[in-house]
């Protein structure tokens, strides 16, 4: 039995495969989220948002998307990146925001985890870290080298989730000690924070040959060529990624202008 999805080189079948490591991570996330919202229950909308975040992580990492992304399709890998790093983290943080604020203000800030989050969750640090994780986990040598082992594939997924949570932390969780980080600064932060992700998408779209050996040499599982696959991966990164970021920026902009108009 496999603990985590990794590139196996075996021909793809639609037979269900269990990945207990994914289930354990999802259970841990669900347990942590349930504990965070136990005392500071958010309204139904926010509660649902958090659970959708947990569900998104589960769908992204478990069969069939998990193994497809690990060893068969670069496009599935790109979709998984968006789900784990750009979609699930803000949903999780939004759902748990009240609980996180309570935890933070009642001593959480002074715990080891609080100190780590306090340091790495500063806007500049978080943006640099997120972009570093995004670039490093898309370098062909890293993808081809790490995705063939369960531990390596787990490390990449964990980096995406951790990087995503840190990146969205300054946007979602209020920080009274950073009054300068208002609406305009947050918009700029979001824009600059995802510049490199756009760069990777363009690199995928402009290539003459497939970018990753594991997907190029994987047993074909669709009628799609390896070049079509990497172009679709670039399209997903660029279009869907931009849609997410600019969608959030649009909502934030109108909220910011409304607040600025009604102080």
């Amino acid at each position, binding site marked *: 039995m496999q603990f985590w999805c990794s*590139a196996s*080189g075996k*021909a793809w079948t639609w037979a269900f495969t269990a990945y207990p490591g994914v289930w354990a991570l999802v259970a841990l996330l669900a347990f942590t989220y349930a504990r965070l919202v136990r005392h500071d229950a958010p309204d139904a909308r926010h509660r649902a948002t958090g659970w959708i975040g947990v569900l998104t992580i589960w769908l992204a990492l478990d069969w069939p998307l998990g193994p497809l992304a690990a060893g068969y399709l670069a496009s599935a890998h790109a979709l998984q990146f968006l789900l784990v790093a750009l979609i699930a983290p803000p949903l999780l943080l939004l759902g748990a925001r009240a609980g996180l604020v309570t935890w933070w203000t009642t001593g959480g800030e002074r715990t080891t985890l609080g100190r780590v989050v306090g340091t790495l969750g500063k806007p500049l640090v978080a943006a640099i870290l997120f972009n570093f994780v995004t670039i490093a986990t898309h370098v062909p040598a890293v993808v*081809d*080298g*790490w995705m*063939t*082992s369960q*531990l*390596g594939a787990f*490390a990449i997924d964990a980096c995406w989730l951790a990087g995503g949570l840190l990146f969205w932390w300054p946007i979602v969780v209020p920080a009274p000690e950073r009054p300068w980080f208002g609406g305009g600064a947050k918009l700029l932060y979001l824009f600059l924070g995802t510049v490199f992700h756009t760069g990777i998408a363009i690199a995928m779209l402009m290539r*003459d*040959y*497939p970018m990753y*050996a*594991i997907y*190029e*040499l*994987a*047993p*074909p599982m669709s009628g799609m*060529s*390896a*070049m079509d696959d990497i172009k679709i991966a670039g399209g997903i990164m660029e279009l869907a990624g931009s849609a997410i970021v600019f969608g959030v920026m649009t909502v934030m902009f109108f909220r910011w202008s409304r607040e600025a108009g009604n102080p």
Partner: protein
Amino acid sequence: MIRCPARARRATVILATFLAACARDDSRGVGGPAVTLPTPYPRPSFTLTGTDGQPFDFQARTRGKLTFVLFGYTHCPDVCPVHVANIAAAMRVLTFEERARTTLVFITTDPDRDSLPVLRSWLASFDSTFVGLRGPVEDVTRLAASLQVAAAMFGARNPDGSYEVGHGAQVIVWQPDDTARVIYPFGVRQAEWAEAMPRLVGRTPTLIQRITGKS
């Protein structure tokens, strides 16, 4: 002065060990350059049936051409479609004249399922000019053995009647001088084929290519 407390050193060692373990665990052996044959093969003489149903005299029909030969079967789930797709994709680097002097010959190791129309249709999904050959298993096995290619091994039948066929995964390349000097194992990428193809077809390198050592 840079301070490096014991905890930081330990963390660095653990991280380095983790990275090394991940990097080492590459059981698929991706990549793979050409393997030089200890003794070059002259272009062999054999005749099998082409997908048009007519006898195909390999030596006569491919003489003077860059010829990629591989043994496989159309139901192959991994090696064959990847090899053929990558060679087809890399052929874009050839000029029209070079492309006309280049061909791929696919010899089926599973004649029971690979009828001539099946073979034609499968190859056409990659490139309509690729040649498919079919013959009795004994003839193909003898030919493969003469080229140092592993004989086909038929796997047990699955409940749905399907089965796998183990076969040699290498591509033998005869250059226009009718000599094969290299074989390519499975794992050669499109970019590697594209770099090798102009050299294999005998394109004269430009001065810059000679200086940089690239095709």
